[in-house]
Protein backbone atom coordinates (compact mmCIF):
# COMPACT_ATOMS: atom_id res chain seq x y z
CA UNK A 1 0.00 0.00 0.00
CA UNK A 2 1.35 3.43 -0.87
CA UNK A 3 1.47 5.85 2.00
CA UNK A 4 0.93 9.56 1.69
CA UNK A 5 4.21 11.40 2.17
CA UNK A 6 4.36 14.17 4.74
CA UNK A 7 4.80 17.50 3.02
CA UNK A 8 6.64 19.89 5.36
CA UNK A 9 5.08 22.83 3.52
CA UNK A 10 1.71 21.81 4.98
CA UNK A 11 3.06 22.58 8.43
CA UNK A 12 2.40 26.29 8.78
CA UNK A 13 1.10 28.59 11.50
CA UNK A 14 -2.54 27.73 10.90
CA UNK A 15 -1.87 24.00 11.04
CA UNK A 16 0.19 23.98 14.22
CA UNK A 17 -2.20 26.32 16.04
CA UNK A 18 -5.10 23.97 15.26
CA UNK A 19 -3.15 20.79 15.95
CA UNK A 20 -2.00 22.23 19.27
CA UNK A 21 -5.55 23.24 20.13
CA UNK A 22 -6.67 19.66 19.51
CA UNK A 23 -4.27 18.62 22.27
CA UNK A 24 -5.43 21.39 24.58
CA UNK A 25 -2.28 23.45 24.02
CA UNK A 26 -2.35 27.16 23.34
CA UNK A 27 0.83 28.23 21.57
CA UNK A 28 2.34 31.64 22.26
CA UNK A 29 3.83 33.76 19.51
CA UNK A 30 7.27 33.11 20.97
CA UNK A 31 6.83 29.36 20.70
CA UNK A 32 5.41 29.33 17.19
CA UNK A 33 8.54 29.58 14.97
CA UNK A 34 10.36 26.86 16.92
CA UNK A 35 7.34 24.57 16.88
CA UNK A 36 6.87 24.94 13.12
CA UNK A 37 10.57 24.36 12.41
CA UNK A 38 10.72 21.30 14.66
CA UNK A 39 7.61 19.69 13.25
CA UNK A 40 8.82 20.33 9.70
CA UNK A 41 12.13 18.65 10.58
CA UNK A 42 10.33 15.65 12.06
CA UNK A 43 8.18 15.40 8.92
CA UNK A 44 11.31 15.25 6.77
CA UNK A 45 12.83 12.55 8.97
CA UNK A 46 9.57 10.56 9.14
CA UNK A 47 9.31 10.55 5.36
CA UNK A 48 12.05 7.95 4.96
CA UNK A 49 10.25 5.62 7.36
CA UNK A 50 6.81 6.25 5.92
CA UNK A 51 7.91 5.38 2.39
CA UNK A 52 9.38 2.04 3.44
CA UNK A 53 7.22 -0.89 2.29
CA UNK A 54 6.17 -3.21 5.11
CA UNK A 55 4.00 -6.28 5.29
CA UNK A 56 0.94 -5.14 7.23
CA UNK A 57 0.48 -8.45 9.00
CA UNK A 58 4.02 -9.76 9.55
CA UNK A 59 5.43 -6.46 10.72
CA UNK A 60 2.90 -5.96 13.49
CA UNK A 61 4.11 -4.07 16.54
CA UNK A 62 4.12 -5.77 19.93
CA UNK A 63 2.72 -4.28 23.14
CA UNK A 64 5.84 -5.32 25.06
CA UNK A 65 9.13 -5.37 23.25
CA UNK A 66 11.15 -8.45 24.10
CA UNK A 67 14.26 -8.79 21.95
Amino acid at each position, binding site marked *: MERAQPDPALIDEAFVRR*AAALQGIVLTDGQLPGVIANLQRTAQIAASVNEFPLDQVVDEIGPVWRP
Partner: protein
Amino acid sequence: MGFESGVGIAAEIRSGRLKAADHLAGVFAGIKARNPGVNAFVSLTESRALDEAKAVDASVAAGRDPGPLAGVPFAVKNLLDVKGLTTLAGSRINRDLPAASADSPLISRLNAAGAVLVGTLNMDEYAYGFSTENTHYGPTRNPHDPERIAGGSSGGSAAAVAGGLVPITLGSDTNGSIRVPSSLCGIFGLKPTYGRLTRAGSFPFVASFDHVGPFGRSSADLAAAYDAMQGPDPRDPVCRPGPAEPVGSQLRLGTEGLRIARAGGYFEANAEKAVAELVKSACAALGATRTVEVPEAGRARAAAFVITATEGSQLHLANLRKRADDFEPMIRDRLLANTMVPAAWYVQAQRFRRWYYAEVMKLFSEVDVILAPATPRPATKIGQDTMTINGVEMLSRPNMGLLTQPVSFIGLPVAAVPIGMLDGLPVGMQVICAPWREDLCLRVCAVLEKMGVAKFTPPKEQP
Protein backbone atom coordinates in the same frame (compact mmCIF):
# COMPACT_ATOMS: atom_id res chain seq x y z
CA MET B 1 43.62 9.74 44.67
CA GLY B 2 40.81 9.95 42.13
CA PHE B 3 41.46 7.33 39.47
CA GLU B 4 41.53 4.13 41.53
CA SER B 5 39.38 1.32 40.17
CA GLY B 6 36.20 0.36 41.96
CA VAL B 7 37.22 -3.27 42.29
CA GLY B 8 40.63 -2.15 43.59
CA ILE B 9 39.02 0.00 46.28
CA ALA B 10 36.73 -2.88 47.25
CA ALA B 11 39.70 -5.26 47.55
CA GLU B 12 41.47 -2.87 49.92
CA ILE B 13 38.38 -2.39 52.06
CA ARG B 14 37.44 -6.08 52.08
CA SER B 15 40.95 -6.96 53.26
CA GLY B 16 40.73 -4.45 56.12
CA ARG B 17 43.70 -2.43 54.82
CA LEU B 18 41.44 0.55 54.14
CA LYS B 19 38.39 1.80 56.05
CA ALA B 20 35.38 2.66 53.91
CA ALA B 21 34.65 5.72 56.04
CA ASP B 22 38.22 7.01 55.62
CA HIS B 23 38.08 6.49 51.89
CA LEU B 24 34.74 8.24 51.73
CA ALA B 25 36.12 11.36 53.41
CA GLY B 26 38.72 11.64 50.65
CA VAL B 27 36.07 11.09 47.99
CA PHE B 28 33.93 13.97 49.23
CA ALA B 29 36.99 16.20 49.51
CA GLY B 30 37.80 15.35 45.89
CA ILE B 31 34.26 16.02 44.72
CA LYS B 32 34.17 19.39 46.44
CA ALA B 33 37.50 20.36 44.93
CA ARG B 34 36.84 19.16 41.38
CA ASN B 35 33.11 19.42 40.83
CA PRO B 36 33.10 23.18 40.29
CA GLY B 37 35.24 22.56 37.20
CA VAL B 38 32.91 20.02 35.62
CA ASN B 39 29.48 20.59 37.21
CA ALA B 40 28.73 16.88 37.29
CA PHE B 41 26.98 16.68 40.67
CA VAL B 42 23.60 18.20 41.45
CA SER B 43 23.38 16.95 45.05
CA LEU B 44 25.53 15.11 47.57
CA THR B 45 24.28 12.48 50.02
CA GLU B 46 26.99 12.85 52.66
CA SER B 47 25.12 11.76 55.76
CA ARG B 48 23.65 8.69 54.13
CA ALA B 49 26.97 7.78 52.54
CA LEU B 50 28.74 7.92 55.89
CA ASP B 51 26.14 5.56 57.38
CA GLU B 52 26.63 3.17 54.49
CA ALA B 53 30.42 3.31 54.76
CA LYS B 54 30.31 2.68 58.51
CA ALA B 55 28.05 -0.33 57.93
CA VAL B 56 30.62 -1.72 55.49
CA ASP B 57 33.42 -1.18 58.02
CA ALA B 58 31.32 -2.89 60.70
CA SER B 59 30.80 -5.90 58.44
CA VAL B 60 34.52 -6.22 57.79
CA ALA B 61 35.29 -5.87 61.50
CA ALA B 62 32.75 -8.57 62.35
CA GLY B 63 34.14 -10.96 59.76
CA ARG B 64 31.01 -10.76 57.58
CA ASP B 65 31.19 -10.47 53.79
CA PRO B 66 30.72 -6.76 53.01
CA GLY B 67 29.93 -7.48 49.36
CA PRO B 68 31.92 -7.37 46.13
CA LEU B 69 31.70 -3.57 45.90
CA ALA B 70 32.49 -2.93 49.57
CA GLY B 71 32.91 0.78 50.17
CA VAL B 72 33.01 1.70 46.47
CA PRO B 73 31.56 5.19 46.02
CA PHE B 74 29.01 5.63 43.25
CA ALA B 75 26.63 8.33 42.05
CA VAL B 76 23.52 8.27 39.88
CA LYS B 77 21.95 10.36 37.14
CA ASN B 78 19.26 12.37 38.85
CA LEU B 79 16.44 10.53 37.13
CA LEU B 80 16.89 7.58 39.52
CA ASP B 81 14.90 7.75 42.74
CA VAL B 82 16.94 8.41 45.86
CA LYS B 83 14.91 8.17 49.05
CA GLY B 84 14.39 11.61 50.56
CA LEU B 85 15.37 13.54 47.40
CA THR B 86 13.12 14.82 44.65
CA THR B 87 13.84 13.06 41.36
CA LEU B 88 14.59 16.12 39.25
CA ALA B 89 15.41 14.43 35.93
CA GLY B 90 17.27 17.63 35.06
CA SER B 91 14.10 19.70 35.19
CA ARG B 92 12.74 22.70 37.02
CA ILE B 93 9.20 21.33 36.84
CA ASN B 94 9.98 18.24 38.92
CA ARG B 95 11.05 20.44 41.85
CA ASP B 96 7.32 20.59 42.60
CA LEU B 97 7.13 16.81 43.10
CA PRO B 98 7.45 15.20 46.54
CA ALA B 99 10.70 13.53 47.53
CA ALA B 100 11.09 9.88 46.52
CA SER B 101 9.81 7.52 49.19
CA ALA B 102 12.25 4.74 48.29
CA ASP B 103 15.48 4.17 46.40
CA SER B 104 15.52 2.87 42.85
CA PRO B 105 16.01 -0.91 43.09
CA LEU B 106 19.30 -0.52 41.20
CA ILE B 107 20.61 1.70 44.00
CA SER B 108 19.37 -0.82 46.56
CA ARG B 109 21.15 -3.61 44.73
CA LEU B 110 24.44 -1.69 44.58
CA ASN B 111 24.06 -0.86 48.27
CA ALA B 112 23.50 -4.55 48.97
CA ALA B 113 26.80 -5.25 47.19
CA GLY B 114 28.51 -2.81 49.55
CA ALA B 115 28.67 0.26 47.29
CA VAL B 116 28.13 3.70 48.85
CA LEU B 117 25.87 6.32 47.24
CA VAL B 118 27.51 9.76 47.28
CA GLY B 119 25.14 11.88 45.19
CA THR B 120 23.10 12.62 42.09
CA LEU B 121 24.30 13.85 38.72
CA ASN B 122 23.44 16.41 36.07
CA MET B 123 21.72 15.53 32.81
CA ASP B 124 19.81 16.97 29.87
CA GLU B 125 16.31 17.86 30.99
CA TYR B 126 14.15 14.74 30.93
CA ALA B 127 17.03 12.96 29.14
CA TYR B 128 16.12 14.69 25.87
CA GLY B 129 19.52 15.65 24.50
CA PHE B 130 23.09 14.56 23.81
CA SER B 131 24.99 17.47 25.36
CA THR B 132 23.99 18.13 29.02
CA GLU B 133 23.81 21.86 28.34
CA ASN B 134 21.22 22.23 31.05
CA THR B 135 19.90 25.77 31.47
CA HIS B 136 18.49 25.14 34.96
CA TYR B 137 21.57 23.52 36.51
CA GLY B 138 24.32 24.73 34.17
CA PRO B 139 26.23 22.77 31.54
CA THR B 140 28.31 19.78 32.56
CA ARG B 141 31.84 20.34 31.26
CA ASN B 142 34.11 17.78 29.66
CA PRO B 143 37.01 16.97 32.02
CA HIS B 144 39.36 16.86 29.01
CA ASP B 145 38.40 20.39 27.94
CA PRO B 146 36.02 22.44 30.06
CA GLU B 147 34.97 24.47 27.02
CA ARG B 148 33.43 21.35 25.52
CA ILE B 149 30.36 19.27 26.20
CA ALA B 150 30.52 16.07 28.21
CA GLY B 151 27.87 14.50 25.99
CA GLY B 152 24.45 13.52 27.16
CA SER B 153 22.00 12.94 28.33
CA SER B 154 24.00 11.24 31.12
CA GLY B 155 26.71 13.91 30.96
CA GLY B 156 27.15 14.23 34.71
CA SER B 157 27.56 10.46 35.01
CA ALA B 158 30.38 10.41 32.46
CA ALA B 159 32.14 13.57 33.63
CA ALA B 160 32.16 12.38 37.26
CA VAL B 161 33.96 9.20 36.23
CA ALA B 162 36.33 10.80 33.70
CA GLY B 163 37.16 13.62 36.13
CA GLY B 164 38.13 11.16 38.87
CA LEU B 165 35.30 12.15 41.22
CA VAL B 166 33.94 8.61 41.58
CA PRO B 167 34.84 5.27 39.96
CA ILE B 168 31.31 4.12 39.08
CA THR B 169 28.12 5.93 38.11
CA LEU B 170 24.73 5.02 36.71
CA GLY B 171 23.00 6.62 33.76
CA SER B 172 20.25 5.91 31.30
CA ASP B 173 20.34 5.34 27.55
CA THR B 174 17.29 5.81 25.33
CA ASN B 175 18.99 6.78 22.08
CA GLY B 176 22.64 6.86 23.11
CA SER B 177 22.73 8.64 26.45
CA ILE B 178 25.25 6.22 27.97
CA ARG B 179 27.35 5.67 24.83
CA VAL B 180 27.61 9.29 23.64
CA PRO B 181 28.96 10.71 26.93
CA SER B 182 31.17 7.65 27.39
CA SER B 183 32.71 8.35 23.99
CA LEU B 184 33.13 12.09 24.50
CA CYS B 185 34.60 11.70 28.01
CA GLY B 186 36.77 8.68 27.14
CA ILE B 187 35.37 6.12 29.58
CA PHE B 188 33.64 2.74 29.49
CA GLY B 189 29.85 2.43 29.51
CA LEU B 190 27.41 -0.43 29.22
CA LYS B 191 23.94 -0.20 27.76
CA PRO B 192 22.56 -3.65 28.52
CA THR B 193 19.88 -5.43 26.51
CA TYR B 194 16.47 -3.76 26.71
CA GLY B 195 14.77 -5.37 29.69
CA ARG B 196 17.94 -6.63 31.38
CA LEU B 197 18.11 -4.09 34.22
CA THR B 198 14.98 -2.88 35.95
CA ARG B 199 13.82 0.65 35.22
CA ALA B 200 11.56 0.78 38.26
CA GLY B 201 12.23 3.88 40.30
CA SER B 202 13.59 5.82 37.34
CA PHE B 203 11.94 8.79 35.66
CA PRO B 204 11.01 7.63 32.14
CA PHE B 205 11.61 9.23 28.76
CA VAL B 206 10.59 6.84 25.95
CA ALA B 207 9.17 3.59 27.27
CA SER B 208 10.01 1.72 24.05
CA PHE B 209 13.73 2.45 24.34
CA ASP B 210 14.62 3.32 27.94
CA HIS B 211 17.58 1.45 29.45
CA VAL B 212 19.70 1.97 32.57
CA GLY B 213 23.37 1.02 32.86
CA PRO B 214 26.76 1.69 34.45
CA PHE B 215 29.82 3.83 33.63
CA GLY B 216 33.39 3.12 34.75
CA ARG B 217 37.04 3.47 33.87
CA SER B 218 37.53 -0.26 33.15
CA SER B 219 35.64 -3.27 31.92
CA ALA B 220 36.13 -4.93 35.33
CA ASP B 221 34.31 -2.07 37.09
CA LEU B 222 31.52 -2.13 34.51
CA ALA B 223 31.09 -5.88 34.98
CA ALA B 224 31.10 -5.64 38.79
CA ALA B 225 28.42 -2.97 38.84
CA TYR B 226 26.37 -4.67 36.13
CA ASP B 227 26.44 -8.03 37.90
CA ALA B 228 25.34 -6.45 41.17
CA MET B 229 22.29 -4.87 39.51
CA GLN B 230 20.93 -7.82 37.56
CA GLY B 231 17.80 -9.74 38.47
CA PRO B 232 14.08 -9.76 37.78
CA ASP B 233 11.74 -7.03 38.98
CA PRO B 234 7.98 -7.30 38.53
CA ARG B 235 7.69 -3.52 38.96
CA ASP B 236 9.14 -3.04 35.47
CA PRO B 237 6.95 -4.84 32.90
CA VAL B 238 9.80 -5.25 30.43
CA CYS B 239 12.38 -6.47 32.96
CA ARG B 240 13.37 -10.01 32.08
CA PRO B 241 12.21 -12.71 34.46
CA GLY B 242 14.68 -15.38 35.46
CA PRO B 243 17.99 -15.47 37.24
CA ALA B 244 20.93 -13.13 36.81
CA GLU B 245 23.63 -14.04 34.31
CA PRO B 246 26.85 -12.72 35.86
CA VAL B 247 29.66 -11.82 33.48
CA GLY B 248 32.50 -10.87 35.85
CA SER B 249 34.07 -14.32 35.81
CA GLN B 250 33.97 -14.42 32.00
CA LEU B 251 36.09 -11.36 31.25
CA ARG B 252 39.21 -13.47 30.88
CA LEU B 253 37.72 -15.86 28.33
CA GLY B 254 39.14 -13.82 25.45
CA THR B 255 37.79 -13.50 21.94
CA GLU B 256 39.05 -16.69 20.36
CA GLY B 257 36.35 -18.19 18.19
CA LEU B 258 34.23 -15.05 18.17
CA ARG B 259 33.21 -13.77 14.75
CA ILE B 260 33.91 -10.05 14.93
CA ALA B 261 33.06 -7.61 12.16
CA ARG B 262 33.21 -3.87 11.58
CA ALA B 263 30.05 -1.99 10.62
CA GLY B 264 30.55 -0.27 7.28
CA GLY B 265 28.05 1.71 5.23
CA TYR B 266 26.01 4.09 7.38
CA PHE B 267 28.33 3.75 10.38
CA GLU B 268 31.40 4.64 8.33
CA ALA B 269 29.72 7.41 6.34
CA ASN B 270 28.54 9.22 9.46
CA ALA B 271 31.86 9.29 11.33
CA GLU B 272 34.82 11.56 10.75
CA LYS B 273 37.62 9.78 8.91
CA ALA B 274 39.93 9.91 11.93
CA VAL B 275 37.25 8.27 14.10
CA ALA B 276 36.64 5.57 11.49
CA GLU B 277 40.40 4.93 11.33
CA LEU B 278 40.54 4.35 15.09
CA VAL B 279 37.75 1.78 14.78
CA LYS B 280 39.64 0.09 11.95
CA SER B 281 42.75 -0.06 14.13
CA ALA B 282 40.78 -1.67 16.95
CA CYS B 283 39.39 -4.23 14.47
CA ALA B 284 42.88 -4.96 13.21
CA ALA B 285 44.09 -5.54 16.76
CA LEU B 286 41.31 -8.10 17.21
CA GLY B 287 42.07 -9.73 13.87
CA ALA B 288 38.65 -8.75 12.57
CA THR B 289 38.79 -8.35 8.81
CA ARG B 290 35.14 -8.64 7.90
CA THR B 291 32.90 -5.66 7.23
CA VAL B 292 29.12 -5.91 7.48
CA GLU B 293 26.40 -3.48 6.56
CA VAL B 294 23.59 -3.08 9.03
CA PRO B 295 20.56 -2.93 6.75
CA GLU B 296 18.60 0.32 6.70
CA ALA B 297 20.45 1.78 9.67
CA GLY B 298 19.64 5.32 8.55
CA ARG B 299 15.95 4.55 8.43
CA ALA B 300 16.25 2.91 11.85
CA ARG B 301 17.64 6.14 13.21
CA ALA B 302 14.75 8.04 11.62
CA ALA B 303 12.20 5.66 13.12
CA ALA B 304 13.83 5.99 16.54
CA PHE B 305 13.54 9.76 16.14
CA VAL B 306 9.80 9.55 15.42
CA ILE B 307 9.06 7.15 18.27
CA THR B 308 11.11 9.27 20.66
CA ALA B 309 9.26 12.40 19.58
CA THR B 310 5.88 10.81 20.11
CA GLU B 311 6.34 8.91 23.35
CA GLY B 312 8.57 11.58 24.89
CA SER B 313 6.10 14.38 24.30
CA GLN B 314 3.03 12.43 25.37
CA LEU B 315 4.74 11.76 28.70
CA HIS B 316 4.83 15.50 29.34
CA LEU B 317 1.54 16.49 27.73
CA ALA B 318 -0.11 17.68 30.94
CA ASN B 319 2.76 20.05 31.76
CA LEU B 320 3.05 21.20 28.14
CA ARG B 321 -0.60 22.30 28.41
CA LYS B 322 -0.18 24.03 31.74
CA ARG B 323 3.36 25.39 31.91
CA ALA B 324 5.29 24.95 28.68
CA ASP B 325 7.61 27.84 29.43
CA ASP B 326 8.96 26.05 32.50
CA PHE B 327 10.63 23.42 30.29
CA GLU B 328 14.27 23.70 29.25
CA PRO B 329 14.31 26.37 26.53
CA MET B 330 16.34 24.12 24.22
CA ILE B 331 13.68 21.40 24.17
CA ARG B 332 10.43 23.30 24.81
CA ASP B 333 9.49 23.93 21.18
CA ARG B 334 10.59 20.44 20.17
CA LEU B 335 8.35 18.87 22.81
CA LEU B 336 5.42 21.06 21.77
CA ALA B 337 5.92 20.16 18.11
CA ASN B 338 6.22 16.48 18.98
CA THR B 339 2.71 16.43 20.47
CA MET B 340 1.43 16.88 16.90
CA VAL B 341 3.17 13.91 15.27
CA PRO B 342 0.46 11.90 13.48
CA ALA B 343 -0.28 8.47 14.90
CA ALA B 344 0.32 6.94 11.45
CA TRP B 345 3.98 8.01 11.53
CA TYR B 346 4.43 6.51 14.97
CA VAL B 347 2.81 3.18 14.12
CA GLN B 348 4.78 2.91 10.89
CA ALA B 349 8.00 3.51 12.85
CA GLN B 350 7.08 0.80 15.36
CA ARG B 351 6.24 -1.63 12.55
CA PHE B 352 9.50 -0.82 10.82
CA ARG B 353 11.21 -1.64 14.09
CA ARG B 354 9.87 -5.20 13.89
CA TRP B 355 11.17 -5.56 10.32
CA TYR B 356 14.58 -4.10 11.19
CA TYR B 357 14.96 -6.35 14.23
CA ALA B 358 14.41 -9.45 12.08
CA GLU B 359 16.98 -8.24 9.54
CA VAL B 360 19.63 -7.46 12.13
CA MET B 361 19.08 -10.85 13.75
CA LYS B 362 19.96 -12.43 10.39
CA LEU B 363 23.25 -10.56 10.62
CA PHE B 364 23.86 -12.04 14.06
CA SER B 365 23.57 -15.53 12.60
CA GLU B 366 26.76 -14.70 10.68
CA VAL B 367 28.72 -12.69 13.26
CA ASP B 368 28.86 -12.48 17.06
CA VAL B 369 30.14 -8.96 17.52
CA ILE B 370 29.80 -5.76 15.48
CA LEU B 371 32.13 -2.83 16.07
CA ALA B 372 31.12 0.73 15.17
CA PRO B 373 32.06 4.26 16.17
CA ALA B 374 30.07 5.58 19.13
CA THR B 375 29.98 9.22 18.03
CA PRO B 376 30.64 10.91 14.70
CA ARG B 377 33.43 12.97 16.24
CA PRO B 378 34.94 14.02 19.58
CA ALA B 379 33.21 16.59 21.81
CA THR B 380 31.90 19.83 20.31
CA LYS B 381 32.12 23.13 22.15
CA ILE B 382 29.47 24.16 24.65
CA GLY B 383 27.03 26.39 22.76
CA GLN B 384 28.03 24.99 19.36
CA ASP B 385 24.94 24.53 17.16
CA THR B 386 26.30 22.80 14.06
CA MET B 387 29.03 20.39 13.07
CA THR B 388 30.31 19.11 9.74
CA ILE B 389 30.78 15.38 9.25
CA ASN B 390 32.47 14.30 6.02
CA GLY B 391 31.48 17.54 4.35
CA VAL B 392 27.87 17.53 5.52
CA GLU B 393 26.86 20.32 7.87
CA MET B 394 24.24 19.30 10.43
CA LEU B 395 22.83 20.30 13.79
CA SER B 396 25.32 19.06 16.36
CA ARG B 397 23.06 18.32 19.33
CA PRO B 398 20.55 15.85 17.81
CA ASN B 399 23.14 14.31 15.47
CA MET B 400 25.69 13.34 18.11
CA GLY B 401 23.48 10.24 18.45
CA LEU B 402 23.45 9.34 14.76
CA LEU B 403 25.48 6.18 15.37
CA THR B 404 23.90 5.04 18.62
CA GLN B 405 20.21 5.35 17.74
CA PRO B 406 20.04 2.48 15.22
CA VAL B 407 21.37 0.13 17.93
CA SER B 408 19.25 1.02 20.96
CA PHE B 409 16.25 1.15 18.60
CA ILE B 410 16.05 -2.65 18.89
CA GLY B 411 17.49 -2.99 22.37
CA LEU B 412 20.81 -4.65 21.55
CA PRO B 413 23.46 -4.76 24.30
CA VAL B 414 26.38 -2.42 23.64
CA ALA B 415 29.54 -1.52 25.48
CA ALA B 416 31.19 1.80 24.72
CA VAL B 417 34.99 1.69 24.95
CA PRO B 418 37.53 4.52 24.67
CA ILE B 419 39.76 3.77 21.69
CA GLY B 420 41.91 6.84 21.30
CA MET B 421 42.48 10.57 21.50
CA LEU B 422 42.11 13.03 18.63
CA ASP B 423 43.70 16.42 19.27
CA GLY B 424 43.55 15.75 22.99
CA LEU B 425 39.90 14.68 22.98
CA PRO B 426 38.74 11.10 23.48
CA VAL B 427 36.45 9.12 21.25
CA GLY B 428 34.79 5.76 21.72
CA MET B 429 33.66 2.66 19.89
CA GLN B 430 30.49 0.59 20.25
CA VAL B 431 30.86 -3.16 20.85
CA ILE B 432 27.46 -4.45 19.74
CA CYS B 433 26.18 -7.98 20.31
CA ALA B 434 22.98 -10.02 19.96
CA PRO B 435 20.30 -9.67 22.66
CA TRP B 436 21.31 -10.95 26.11
CA ARG B 437 24.99 -11.30 25.16
CA GLU B 438 26.44 -8.64 27.41
CA ASP B 439 29.05 -11.26 28.27
CA LEU B 440 30.48 -11.01 24.75
CA CYS B 441 30.41 -7.20 24.79
CA LEU B 442 32.46 -7.15 27.98
CA ARG B 443 34.83 -9.93 26.88
CA VAL B 444 35.75 -7.89 23.82
CA CYS B 445 36.19 -4.81 26.03
CA ALA B 446 38.49 -6.71 28.36
CA VAL B 447 40.63 -7.98 25.48
CA LEU B 448 40.94 -4.51 23.96
CA GLU B 449 41.89 -3.18 27.38
CA LYS B 450 44.51 -5.88 27.89
CA MET B 451 46.00 -5.06 24.48
CA GLY B 452 46.12 -1.37 25.41
CA VAL B 453 43.83 -0.54 22.49
CA ALA B 454 41.02 0.56 24.83
CA LYS B 455 41.99 2.56 27.85
CA PHE B 456 40.91 5.44 30.02
CA THR B 457 43.26 8.40 29.63
CA PRO B 458 43.13 10.80 32.59
CA PRO B 459 42.58 14.46 31.69
CA LYS B 460 45.83 16.40 31.29
CA GLU B 461 44.66 18.86 33.89
CA GLN B 462 42.47 17.68 36.71
CA PRO B 463 39.22 19.59 36.94
